[in-house]
């Protein structure tokens, strides 16, 4: 399958930059260390905050650090606007592949590399130290499925923002307000901490499919009865975001003018 080849080549490409590897690992460890100390300090005189225990929040944020490399938006998706401006987009259009699908698989290849190279060692180290507990096989499987859907939703959101900059013809896209998306996705802290109005907003937006749902499944914040409904809503959002980004792109193609020859 041709798309699989895209993923494979990006996965292999990751191994070429070994000099930087250790620096990347140290960064990932450092961010996990900060989270560990921060939450211990927040729980100094409390057993429960927003109904969550320290162990649950630590599991949630630490597995979030493990998945962070995997869930990083690929810059390729964000640069569609500039590829349109420079005309480089014609090289993408002459290929007999769908651009969204191609970039998605390339992104998955790169994300897969990042997961294997930095996420997995961090996970194993934390599990060995007893800092992070690995859930039951069933929950683990559901977590992986959810994580994959999180990637597709995150990717499609970035892709959509790339297409959006093509319409607006400015450099300012969603990536400039990405912290707001991160906050609403639950990347900084679990949605349980939000004031009611913000929680409601986050529940109605697609962003929680990008982070909160898989991490809540891993950490047990999502109780047994909540796992399946949240996976279903995540699945719907994922399909929805894919459909919207493909539609936006084909709409953009119709009005595309490439200058020069």
């Amino acid at each position, binding site marked *: 399958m041709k798309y699989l080849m895209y993923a494979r080549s990006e996965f292999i490409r990751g191994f070429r*930059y070994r*000099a*930087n*590897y*250790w*620096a*990347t690992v*140290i*960064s990932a460890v*450092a*961010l996990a*260390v*900060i989270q560990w*100390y*921060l939450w*211990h*300090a*927040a729980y*100094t*005189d*409390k057993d429960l*905050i*927003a109904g969550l225990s320290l162990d649950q929040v630590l599991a949630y944020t630490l597995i979030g650090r493990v998945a962070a490399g995997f869930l990083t938006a690929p810059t390729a998706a964000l640069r569609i606007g500039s590829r349109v401006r420079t005309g480089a987009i014609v090289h993408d259009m002459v290929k007999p592949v769908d651009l969204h699908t191609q970039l998605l698989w390339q992104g998955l290849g790169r994300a897969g590399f990042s997961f294997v190279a930095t996420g997995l060692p961090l996970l194993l180290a934390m599990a060995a130290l007893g800092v992070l507990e690995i859930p039951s096989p069933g929950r683990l499987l559901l977590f992986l499925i959810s994580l994959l859907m999180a990637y597709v939703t995150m990717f499609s959101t970035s892709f959509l923002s790339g297409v959006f900059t093509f319409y607006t013809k*400015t*450099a*300012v896209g969603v990536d*400039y*307000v*990405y*912290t*707001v*998306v*991160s*906050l609403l996705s639950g990347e*900084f*802290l679990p949605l349980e*901490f*939000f*004031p009611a109005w*913000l929680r409601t907003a986050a529940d109605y937006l697609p962003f929680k499919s990008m982070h909160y749902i898989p991490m809540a499944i891993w950490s047990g914040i999502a109780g047994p009865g909540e796992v399946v409904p949240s996976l279903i809503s995540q699945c719907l959002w994922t399909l929805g975001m894919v459909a919207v980004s493909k539609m936006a792109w084909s709409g953009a193609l119709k009005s595309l003018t490439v200058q020069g020859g």
Partner: protein
Amino acid sequence: MGGMREPKLQESRLSSIWRHARLYYWYLRANWLSLWAYPVPFIMMNVAGIVYALGSVAAVWVLFSKIHAIGDWTLPEVMLIYGLSIFSRSLFHLFWIELMNTSAMVKAGDIDRLLVRPLNPMYQLVAGYLDNDDWGELLTAVALVWTSLGMLGHRTVANVFWCLLASVSGSLIFASIHAVCNGMAFFTVETGGFSQLAWTTDEFSRYPADIYGKGVRALITWVIPVAFASFYPAQVILGEGRLRLIGLLSPVAAILSFAFAYWFWGKAMDKYQGVGN
């Protein structure tokens, strides 16, 4: 050539510094005007930048909607430390960002251009560019420091000046870390990972340094001194006794770490070989 001295080209260190400082005004002026060449995208980008900075500040605010303290620190105290951290970081980002370009310049052989001019090479690199996309974070930082000083009841003229001085000195600490990490380019050429690592260290300065264990705290005080960019200077306003004294020494820590970084960068640059013919 040791014996050949040409007195006319000799310049005292003091007058050399003065010449660089005067020239910096013209660099800044040119850079500032070029930022305003396209005012609408510039303003839009930085309004978005305010939203970007507020997004991460909001995480702290959300946390404090459920708790009253992180460790021993209340919301306004954490806000002051966080504010000083992003104040220092944005000053670094705006004025020193070209340090990140070292690797690209080594690859392209552009360091040659810095070496043939009668100005300090690192100075040329840094002064040659003023970044366009972090003014929003700077404004957010100023607002955060101002607000938290007010909430603490410590908004005096002396404290405001101290926060300004502390942020300039903090930006010098970040500049030192990035100069060392990007100076690695002269040895390894590719520095993406080191550069990313340098950006990660500022995360340690966002929260009170005493929430970390002894090892981490020693690391961010003595080795990668980011605690001197926010936590210790904040102690001049919040703390007392020994902590306050250490806080007052922050600018000294900044100057020492920059002196080391500058020395390292110069030593590393001696390894530069150039490319092509």
